[in-house]
Structures are given as structure tokens and as C-alpha cells.
């Protein structure tokens, strides 16, 4: 049935901004405030899409192209990710690499727009971002390689839609190691604490925020929306590694969505309890993720 195939992308497109709301609400609860409404991100996006954009004179067509490419690439990536036991729209051997590099393409264009403004401020953010991603990509790919070896499948659909309780008891430790490693990657890629503070606007501490400093209006809306979808997709992958499924499609989908929300709460908790790491220590934590992934791979291969 076709509806089964598009329900995942549909959910991700519709529910993604809700994640930001959940995270912010959790942080507010920890701080003792009431916090923003859960649907605040939707209101923000609606406001941004109706605004006009201001472009600096030093920018070129790349600056206008970047956010559009970013959003379209991420929407394309939603076609690759399975969730809740249902297969993805497009699935073929090795699509996990395409998945990782679609994000890479998005990052590339974000960095290009940042450099295009000619401001050293954004250049600094761009260089930090690229350095961290150089460390997160291996961790992510090696971790998924371990899962792929276990599940004997080279496609995301095969890897993530098949976690079940029998597999869990068989190789539980490996799943946990990969999940932990992918969690660290998740925090890094989505610019969450302890890697990056999404609320800061101080010169020396921004990484992701600084790259989009010059974007405004609809462009900023595209970028924010794309970031939300990216977070949703990575959560789905993480949840797919851990959560077992039991056959009934509706239960599985609702379990998956609920798990993604719980993950968002967890991220909120982590953000509230940890301070941002010193910049020199961030590569260390990313190397820990790498080591864990490699360890998981070793354990599977022996």
C-alpha cells in the first residue's frame, strides 16, 4: 500500500519542528520556568516565511542557493529512512552512505554560504563545523557498519526496521555501544550541548549559530526547518537501532514516534545538566565516539 510508504516522510515533515519545542520545554522545566509553548517553532517558521530577506552586498548567488539546497537535500533524505517497521520509499544496498553524504552536501552548502558573506566571523564557525564533522562522519559510518554486519543488510531499511527482542538478547552490548556513539554524533551534528550551545550568541562560543548569522527571512526559515528535519531523521536512526518492533504497523509507528519524543526529552535533560565543553575537548569526545564505534565493529567481526 502506498500510504505505508509515505507515512514516514509525512510524519517527519510535519512533526519535526515539534522536537525543538519539546527540547526547549524540557530545558525550561529544569530551569524552573514555564517556557515557550510546544508549538513555538511552528509560529516562528510561519513568521519567517512571511518576512522579506535582506541580502548583503558582498554575497553572491551561492548565498541565495545555500538554504534552498539544504532544505531540498534533507527532504530527499527523508525518503531513505525507515521507521516503525515500515520500509523507506527508496531503499538499495549502500543507501546508508548516500544518507550520510546527503547531510554532508547540506553541510557543504551551509559552509559555502557562511564563507560567501566574506565575514571572518562566519569563517571561524565554518572551520570549526568542518573539523567536527570530520570526526563525526567516521563514527557514524563505522557504527552503522557494525549494525549492518549484524543484521546482514547493506541498506538502512534492512538495518533499522528489524530490531527485535531476540536480536537484542543476542548482541545487546554492541547495540548499546553503537547507540551511545550515534548519540554523541547526534549531539554534535545537531549543534546541541555539550558540543555547541544553540542559545549563545557570543563570539567565541558559537559554532552553528554563527554560520547562519547573516541569513534572514525565508532563507532563515528554510534553514531552521531543515535543521529540524535533520534532527528528526537522526533521531529516527538512533531509535531504529535500539527499539524492537513487533509486527503490527500502527503500534510500531506510534512506538517510534513516541521514542523520538522521548529522545528529545533526553536531549533536553543532557543540555540542562552539562555545560559546553572547552573547544579543545570537543574533539576528544568525538574521538571517544569513534573508539566506541570501532569497538562495536571489532566485537561484531570477531
Amino acid at each position, binding site marked *: 500500500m502506498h500510504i505505508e510508504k509515505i507515512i514516514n516522510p509525512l510524519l517527519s515533515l510535519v512533526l519535526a519542528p515539534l522536537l525543538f519545542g519539546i527540547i526547549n520545554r524540557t530545558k525550561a522545566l529544569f530551569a524552573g520556568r514555564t517556557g515557550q509553548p510546544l508549538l513555538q517553532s511552528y509560529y516562528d517558521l510561519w513568521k519567517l516565511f512571511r518576512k522579506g530577506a535582506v541580502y548583503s552586498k558582498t554575497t553572491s548567488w551561492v548565498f541565495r542557493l545555500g538554504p534552498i539546497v539544504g532544505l531540498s537535500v534533507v527532504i530527499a533524505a527523508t525518503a531513505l529512512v525507515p521507521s516503525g517497521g515500515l520500509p523507506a520509499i527508496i531503499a538499495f544496498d549502500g543507501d546508508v552512505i548516500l544518507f550520510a553524504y546527503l547531510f554532508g552536501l547540506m553541510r557543504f552548502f551551509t559552509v559555502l554560504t557562511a564563507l560567501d558573506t566574506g565575514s571572518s566571523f562566519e569563517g571561524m564557525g565554518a572551520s570549526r563545523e568542518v573539523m567536527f564533522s570530520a570526526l563525526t562522519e567516521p563514527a557514524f559510518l563505522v557504527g552503522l557498519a557494525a549494525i549492518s554486519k549484524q543484521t546482514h543488510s547493506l541498506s538502512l531499511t534492512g538495518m533499522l526496521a528489524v530490531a527485535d527482542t531476540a536480536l537484542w538478547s543476542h548482541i545487546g*552490548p554492541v547495540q548499546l555501544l553503537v547507540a551511545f556513539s550515534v548519540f554523541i554524533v547526534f549531539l554534535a551534528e545537531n549543534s546541541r550541548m555539550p558540543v555547541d550551545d544553540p542559545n549563545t550568541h557570543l563570539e567565541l562560543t558559537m559554532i552553528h549559530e554563527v554560520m547562519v548569522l547573516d541569513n534572514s527571512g525565508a532563507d532563515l526559515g528554510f534553514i531552521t526547518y531543515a535543521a529540524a528535519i535533520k534532527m528528526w531523521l537522526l533521531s529516527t536512526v538512533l531509535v531504529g537501532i535500539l527499539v524492537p518492533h513487533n509486527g503490527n504497523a500502527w503500534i510500531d509507528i506510534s512506538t517510534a514516534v513516541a521514542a523520538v519524543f522521548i529522545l528529545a526529552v533526553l536531549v533536553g535533560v543532557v543540555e540542562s545538566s552539562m555545560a559546553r565543553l572547552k573547544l579543545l575537548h570537543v574533539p576528544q569526545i568525538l*574521538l*571517544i565516539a*569513534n*573508539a*566506541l564505534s570501532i*569497538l562495536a565493529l*571489532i*566485537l561484531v567481526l570477531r
Partner: protein
Amino acid sequence: MSFMTNLVDTVIILFILTNFMLLGSSSLRRCIRVIALQGILLGILAILMENGTPTIHLILLSAAIICLKGIIFPFLLIRTLRDLNVQHEVEPFVGYGTSLVLSPLVLVVCIWLGSQLSLPMGVTSSLVAPVAFFTITCGLFLIVSRKKALTQVLGYLVLENGIYVFGASIATIQPVLVELGILLDAFVAVFVMGIAIYHINREFEHTDVDRLNRLKG
């Protein structure tokens, strides 16, 4: 496989993770706590390795290991740390990032080595011997590449842990008395080293072994 295999596997993986943490962390206090955890895991492993029901001797030995390595050694070391008034390791010869990335590769080599040796396996997991070699290598690495005297003592403790895991993995018939003698030696060794570090600190006002280089030739 049975529940036992999974349990042994989990403990062993935790053991490997403690080694990673030791190689990657610069805070001496955290290293000591990790070694305490390693000692406790060692005690648990000692009981799990035994085929069949554990004898009363084995339970006592395991309790002794947990007590000594998990509680008493870290206590002694933290006291020495307090006397020294030092919190962090200085930048070692091989950086933390490099050691973190190298360690899984070393683990691969150890797994290969473990497969080469046809040890009489009385145990429930094939990971035990490689992890023993890996721990020994980590211990040696800590002794050689770190600059503080206290880290060298920690490296020695990790070395002893690794050798102990190895001893538990081969079906030896060392009587409990000798095991206790070995534990006692480790205890006295740590004690002696702690006192030595205290004296060194008093005389030199630092404990960087890198700077202990008057005797040459």
C-alpha cells in the same frame, strides 16, 4: 548462547571501556575511580569464570579482590593525591586523542594474538585472553607514556589487573593461598610506591618523572 556467556561478555566489554577511559582522561582523580571500577569488575569476573558452582575459597578470593582493588587501593591513591596537591596529568608523550584512536587498533592486534594461542579454555568466552593482553598493553602504555609518577603507579595496577584476568582465563590450579600472596604483594607494592611518591614530592617538589634525569650514563 547462554545467559552466562552474555554476562561474561558484558563484563568484559565494560572492562575494555574502562581501559579506554584510562587512556583518554587527563584527570588523575577520574583515573583512580576508573581503576576502582576495574577492580570491582575483576572480582566479578573471577566468580563468573569458574565452571560450575564456585567454592567458598573462590568467593572469599573474589571478595578480597573487590575489597583491595576496588576500595583500599583507590583510597590509598587518593590520599597520596591529596598530599601531592596535583589534579591533572601534564600533556603526555602520546596525546590523549591519539591514544584513544590507537586503542581499538591495539585491541584488534590482541584479538589476533589471542586466536593464535591455543589456550586450554575452561572459560565461557573467547574474548577473555585478548582483553587480558589488551589490559596489559594499556598498563605498559600508561607507564611508558605518562609523565606523572602517580600515573605510573596506576599503569602498574592496570598491568596487574590484566595479568590477573589472564590468569583467570586459563584453567590454572593455583591454590588460593598463592593468589592471596599475589594480592598481598600488589597491596604492598602500591603502598610502597605511594610512600615513595610522597618522598619524591617532598624532595623535588614535583612528581614529573620526566624531570627525574640526573642519573645518566
